């Protein structure tokens, strides 16, 4: 199947650092892709780079092919039709991602007006439907409410409603549940999955929470220091990781079966994007590292069916 969005060699350079360095990703129609990584691994930056939301100091290279056009070189007016119209995005902080001085309804109808040329009563009806769709009770009365009159979870729902207003084919969710309570997190994730089915979208969820990925995604990409370490179907990748970093991540998860035992964690901290180690970027923190790990470039190679790993010790890791 041809991918909906095909990213090749995406790099972001800021000053002398390269926080995103040659990322290749494919997003299939109807798929939910999770992008996981620590803070500073470049996951949010990659998302914003695709939609060209980064300030001009950030130099973005590579290609992101969407419907046969490269988003990274598309002229700004065409790009504006893609943003919101075809690719939508929801943010981590529903508190700040809604305009505090405009009523919720207006923020939804505005997008309807811009992208679908829907105005007046028709737009209002559609906005009510959308709020209904994201599970906000008494939607028609809620249209005139301001963001500060909504709770955090409701705001995230409203944000999603606004993002979906124009019927996008791809929804980028940048840590959509990080700022929310655990119970609300679950509701929002279920909502995203339901909407994905109902609206036949693809969804990309960026998160540092492996639990979120396990619960929602079809496929996952693990990022470390601006590079893809491993990609594969969630089920196989989580049961048999083929990269030492993924294994480390999974082992540092607290779980009920091993309660009250010391967590393993990963020693050290991620490298500074301005001073990256040679060879595999994870090598200095890796328990599996050999001398060969500290030289040369890594490429993603098949480690299992559908699974790609940039680890030269993939087989040893899978056996561990």
């Amino acid at each position, binding site marked *: 199947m041809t991918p909906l969005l095909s990213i090749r060699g995406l790099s972001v350079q800021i000053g002398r650092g390269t926080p995103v360095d040659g990322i290749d990703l494919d997003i299939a129609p109807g798929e939910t892709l999770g992008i996981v990584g620590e803070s500073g691994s470049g996951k949010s930056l990659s998302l*914003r780079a695709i*939609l060209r*939301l980064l300030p001009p100091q950030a130099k973005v290279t590579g290609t992101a092919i969407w419907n046969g056009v490269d988003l990274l070189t598309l002229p700004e007016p065409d*790009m*504006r*039709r*893609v*943003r*919101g*119209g075809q690719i*939508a*995005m929801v*943010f*981590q*902080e529903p508190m*700040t*991602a*809604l*305009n*505090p*001085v*405009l009523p919720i309804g207006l923020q939804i109808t*505005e*997008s309807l007006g*811009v*992208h679908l040329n829907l105005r007046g009563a028709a737009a209002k009806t559609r906005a009510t439907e959308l709020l209904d769709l994201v599970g906000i009770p008494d939607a028609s*009365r*809620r249209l005139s*409410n301001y963001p*500060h*009159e909504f709770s955090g979870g409701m705001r995230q729902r409203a*944000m999603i409603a*606004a*993002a979906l207003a*124009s019927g996008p084919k791809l929804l980028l969710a940048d840590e959509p549940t990080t700022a929310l309570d655990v119970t609300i997190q679950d509701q929002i994730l279920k909502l995203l999955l339901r909407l994905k089915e109902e609206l036949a979208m693809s969804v990309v969820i960026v998160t540092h929470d492996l639990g979120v990925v396990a619960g929602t995604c079809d496929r996952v990409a693990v990022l470390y220091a601006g590079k893809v370490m491993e990609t594969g179907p969630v089920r196989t990748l989580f049961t048999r990781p083929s990269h030492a970093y993924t294994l480390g991540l999974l082992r540092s998860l607290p779980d009920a079966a091993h309660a009250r035992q010391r967590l393993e964690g990963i020693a050290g901290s991620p490298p500074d994007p301005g001073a990256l180690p040679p060879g595999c970027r994870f090598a200095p923190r890796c328990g599996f590292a050999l001398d060969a790990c500290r030289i040369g470039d890594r490429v993603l190679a098949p480690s299992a069916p559908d699974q790609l790993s940039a680890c030269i010790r993939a087989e040893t890791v899978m056996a561990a």
Partner: protein
Amino acid sequence: MSATIAARRRFVLPPWSLLGGAAILLVLLACAVVPEYIAPYSPTNFDFRSLLQPPTLAHPFGTDNFGRDILSRTIWASSVDLQIAIFATLFPAIFGTLVGSVLGYVGGWPDAIFRRIVDVLITIPFLVLVIVIVAVLGPGLGNMYIAVSAVNWIIYARLMRGEVLAQASRDYAAAGRVMGYGPIRIIFRHLLPNAVAPVLVYWMTDMALEILLGSSLGYLGLGAQPPTAEWGVLIADGKNFMTTAWWMSIFPGIAIVLAGTGFSLLGDGLASMLRRGR
């Protein structure tokens, strides 16, 4: 839940400073709009039987060296001074806000040029700059408006630029771009309403400042021309009689203080109300 919120929104009392400022300004506004009904005498009628009279019941503020009633002149002057407050700030406030919003969002070289202009202008005292421009154009209120407008919009633009810059880094601005909105829509519909509060407050303070400036220019003979009654002109008229007829300068001076206090209180109250609205 929304019912209680609606109720709360309806019954919020504006802060006392806002009410106080509004009350003072309403009185001044009444004086400015219908002085002929409020002032007991004509502001320009000479009465040589009662020259330089101290405050009495017949002339509560006393009379000047031509026998004109100071109270009536002060009341008539309020219309000139409120005009100054409005006309000297209207253009700078609106134009500066628009320019500042665009610069704050667009940035780049237009912004860099603007910042250099600000740097240069700030090294020259505002009053001196205005005096120079008025001196070149010729004295009079119209030229004073032109001079103030030419300089003052930069203050508003600078204020607005900073606010918009801060708002533009918020997520809802990014969300607007993600929705595919163009820069004009983002600047004027999303950023400006969120950034305009400090400018509104400054506008109120600025009206007080412009009245003082108008009075200073009037005092120097560059603003309103005699026999137009203007508070600064009135004070200047009284300066030769300061030791013998203090009331000539003191009462118009009090009027200036009152107007300044009114605008400041209004600005203050507006500020705290806008803060509360957040």
